[in-house]
């Protein structure tokens, strides 16, 4: 799925959360790098339609949410920064509930993500209540859940925040494989430099503005920087 964000601005009171944003997301992994308060979560809320778009336009393969919400939402998978699991239900019940909201039976949902459940070490925890899982496994459940309906667009808002290294690497590896092998458009918001690989697409967002948007290697070459952290510092200085 191709997403075009055109001239999108958003304000809370007098505060500009997003300021005239233009983006184009294509299949593959795009990292959205920005500090806290850069506007990443606002961008997610606007793309998912949880917040009303007041300025600009967002299209999904040429269609807006108001034009074809059902078909767009059927192709969209989201992991939010804050957990959205029902902690009183088991892993299986959470997956089953999500599947039903997308019109999928529990059996076909589980069979579709069986391999992923194994890889994420969740198969043995299907009957465990979410409240009894650690943060890393909760995140894994969220990732597995958002793939139940085979989305072609995946929005991940800081999915590895607060996780141990093992869980972080596992989630990153799974998502990278997904983006490359299944032609899924992935937007991964992060503020961690080490999560950005040189072959990723990179969007640098700060104070609601896009400072850079290109292939990571191309940006490093363009700004004569050796790594992401230096590129980041350079862009921040340039931006201010």
């Amino acid at each position: 799925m191709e997403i075009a964000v055109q001239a999108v601005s958003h304000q809370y009171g007098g505060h500009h959360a997003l300021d005239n944003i233009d983006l184009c997301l294509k299949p593959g992994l795009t990292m959205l790098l920005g500090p806290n308060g850069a506007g990443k979560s606002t961008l997610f809320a606007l793309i998912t339609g949880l917040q009303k778009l007041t300025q600009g336009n967002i299209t999904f393969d040429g269609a807006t949410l108001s034009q074809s919400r059902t078909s767009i939402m059927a192709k969209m998978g989201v992991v939010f920064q804050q957990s959205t699991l029902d902690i009183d239900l088991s892993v299986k019940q959470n997956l089953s509930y999500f599947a039903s909201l997308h019109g999928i039976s529990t059996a076909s949902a589980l069979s579709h993500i069986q391999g992923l459940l194994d890889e994420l070490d969740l198969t043995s925890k299907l009957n465990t209540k979410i409240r009894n899982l650690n943060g890393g496994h909760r995140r894994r459940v969220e990732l597995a859940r958002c793939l139940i309906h085979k989305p072609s667009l995946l929005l991940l808002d800081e999915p590895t925040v607060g996780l141990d290294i093992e869980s972080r690497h596992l989630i990153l590896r799974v998502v990278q494989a997904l983006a490359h092998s299944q032609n899924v458009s992935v937007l991964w918001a992060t503020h961690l430099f080490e999560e950005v690989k040189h072959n990723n697409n990179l969007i640098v967002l700060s104070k609601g503005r896009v400072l850079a948007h290109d292939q990571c290697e191309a940006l490093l070459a363009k700004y004569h920087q050796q790594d992401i952290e230096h590129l980041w510092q350079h862009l921040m200085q340039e931006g201010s």
Partner: protein
Amino acid sequence: MYWRCFVGVLTREMLKFWQQRTRLLSALVRPLLWLFVFAAGFRSALGLSMTEPYESYILYEEYIVPGLAAMIVLFNSMQSSLSMVYDREMGSMKVLLLSPVPRPFLLGSKLIANTLVSAIQVYIFFAFALLLDVRLSALGYVYALPVIALLSLFLGSLGLLLANYIKQLENFAGVMNFVIFPLFFLSSALYPLWKMREASEWLYQICAFNPFSSGVELLRFALYEKLEHNALAVVLCLTAITFIFAVRSFRPKASKGRFS
């Protein structure tokens, strides 16, 4: 797709209801206390003359059974709105709102699930009322079901609407004080309106205007195999209005902090 979605929402609500068995207990203890304790004390104080739908003089216990059944629906509906606020705070509301199924259908499914939970509680309460020999006709119990459903849809929609304006879980106490108690006590649930009129004309007017009174009377008449047309019209209209406003209130807003 819609059927599976409906079943999913229903299953989740029933699972949560089953997990919160204390909720069932507290939902029953409240009306049973009224029925077994309050009614016993007030039986001698309140003489009830014959008014529609009753065809003879009745005991106070019999009078308050429909009101207490409506109270169960009221409390359960508000409890449901509380769970919406909880879902919003815990983030699980987003999962519902990001479903490809239209929001009116999702909210309607939640209301129907709430109706089912209410109906289960009410019929358990009716079973306990038999212990006090408050025995209604079998047909009365059957006629009560659509009324319970309608009342539950109305109060559930009201709860959904309120859930949008409750910023935090802690503010739910305000709903108790400013919505549930006035709706319940300023109605015909515990005392007939003519009795209220003897005490105060303006209180009577408020009670008569209270839509919950219409719900109570509709249920009371249904339990005696009768139909109160005015009450039906009021509850039907208010159900439609509150549902429309509840659905509208779940539309995305530009402001932060509700669902995003």
